[in-house]
């Protein structure tokens, strides 16, 4: 057996190993190609086309960036809605994170009835996906009881003026959404608390640190990766949120004969790009913060 043959044999052996890996991945590869890659590619292609629905099917006309241009400079409503939605996300996401963190901190303590409390706080996981929550909100069952009783709008009017008032009232009236969309986040944070070893707390207590200090020195830095995870989960979650006004417009345009599906695809892609920016911001922050914590 010469060197070459031995090499061949070795490669054969390696590829047999690799083959098993690919065999395990096969369902995913087929699924990804047909249900993710292909639709995404098609959708990108669509966004550069003007699509007419004729009796023989779709008729494509290549228009380049025309759809994007129209959407940004001709359509007066879409950019405004996009920006408002983006600003609201910027307020809502940190609020969801802070709320979920606070609740999970409380749920992580020992107290009587912890099991029941945990059960209640995970209920949103069951309710928030799908049509049921939409029905609950449209009949007013999901509104915060104090919003009307205490005339929150009037108070906000006195302290904040103009656009800030609108944003504050909007977020407050969506306070329930913050409550209802933090189920999974609470779960992830609770799981995160378990990863911090108990001995660390004991060690810092022996060193004479107060609980306040041990929270900021140990708990908080340890939880930063989970905040990043939660931030990304929240962003993706809000993306497919049933009341999302941007997606409403996209869906409406999808089946609108005058502008067509190509235009709607362009709208969806622009929104997706904005969301990707948010995700990168979240990743960058957590990356920087956890590096800082390690130093």
């Amino acid at each position, binding site marked *: 057996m010469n060197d070459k043959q031995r090499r061949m044999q070795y490669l054969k052996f390696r590829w047999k190993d690799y083959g098993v890996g690919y065999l395990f991945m096969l369902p995913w590869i087929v699924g990804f190609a047909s249900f993710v890659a292909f639709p995404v590619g098609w959708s990108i292609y669509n966004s550069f086309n003007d699509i007419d629905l004729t009796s023989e099917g779709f008729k494509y006309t290549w228009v380049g960036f025309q759809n994007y241009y129209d959407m940004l400079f001709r359509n007066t409503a879409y950019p405004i809605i996009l920006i408002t939605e983006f600003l609201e996300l910027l307020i809502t996401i940190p609020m969801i994170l802070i709320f979920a963190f606070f609740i999970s901190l409380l749920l992580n303590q020992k107290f009587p009835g912890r099991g029941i409390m945990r059960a209640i706080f995970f209920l949103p996981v069951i309710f928030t996906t799908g049509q049921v929550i939409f029905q609950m909100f449209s009949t007013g069952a999901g509104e915060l009881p104090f919003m009307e009783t205490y005339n929150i709008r009037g108070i906000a009017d006195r302290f904040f003026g103009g656009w800030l008032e609108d944003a504050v009232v909007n977020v407050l009236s969506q306070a329930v959404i913050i409550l209802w969309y933090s189920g999974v986040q609470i779960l992830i944070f609770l799981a995160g608390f378990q990863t911090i070893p108990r001995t660390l707390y004991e060690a810092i207590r022996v060193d004479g640190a107060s609980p306040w200090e041990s929270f900021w020195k140990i708990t908080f830095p340890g939880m930063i990766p989970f905040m990043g995870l939660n931030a990304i989960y929240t962003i993706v979650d809000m993306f*497919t949120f049933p009341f999302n006004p941007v997606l409403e417009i996209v869906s409406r345009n999808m089946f609108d004969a005058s502008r067509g599906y190509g235009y709607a695809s362009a709208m969806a892609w622009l929104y997706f790009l904005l969301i990707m920016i948010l995700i990168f911001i979240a990743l960058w922050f957590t990356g920087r913060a956890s590096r800082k914590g390690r130093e």
Partner: protein
Amino acid sequence: MKWGQTVRQIKGEMTGAMDSRKAQQVKKMILGQNVNDGWLAKIVLLLMLIVIAFLYVQPIIEMISTSLKTLGDLIDPVVGFIPREMTMQNFLDAWKGLKYPEAFGITLFLALFGSIFQVLSCSLTGYALARLKFPGKNLFFVLTIVAFLVPPQITIVPLYMIFYQLGWLYTPLVILVPALLAQGIRGALFVIIFRQFFLSQPKALEEAAKMDGASAFRLFFRIMLPLAKASCLVVFLFSFIWYWNMYYEVELLLSQGFTPLSIRLDQLETNLVGNRALNFIGNPADPVSEGPRMAAAFLIVLPPVILYLIAQRWFTEGIERTGMVE
């Protein structure tokens, strides 16, 4: 004389010390040694949680109360949470409007098989990404994350066209085939969960099995999958509930024929037209249809709530043991 005085003094000091020790004990009980284990802290904590928990439970109570109210009670603003007279009429309407037994069967079929398929396919993929060696593995992992980020709004119309070409529209295949190929509802997230779990397992397991001459598949199904029982359960439960509630995807792909409950909730008003209480389709906040719609919503969430109450322990504890933790 002097001696007696000293004794009395010592006695007094002793009782004083005793008192202060008792006081210390009481103080310790109330305030605790740390911030979080005294009575006071616990009461404050519990109060805070109860207030917030009420906000969570309140819409559910309102849903149940609305579904039990008669039309007169719904219109009357004086009537609060408790209806003047209970009626089951709303539930009867909802039952009829949803065609509940049939729709229940369809939804159960989709959710059950969808989630079983997802557990199988996602665990297979997660295992390969965590433990097997092959070129391009990192690329596949990045693509998994991309798949998680791509919103369904972008892919839904191309998917509709694909399923239309295949002739699968309005059949359960539109749900089951993607599930079997690890691209079901939030499949990418489940792949990541499984990958994380398998990464945390000791390497020696596989080496031992390989020594014994077990094939990769045998190793996976006999050893690795049973080890991942907790992850499987969490993925199954989440997947089941998400499939049960799934709305956006099926709104287009299963809008006729094989319709699950969530779509029928949407069509409830149309289905009930001609019914004595609902002879027009009003605005969503219209009290006329509010009763049946809330009753329908209750009927829909009831099965997952029951499942959740049974499996609650695994939901909340299992997740702490699975690979959700990086």
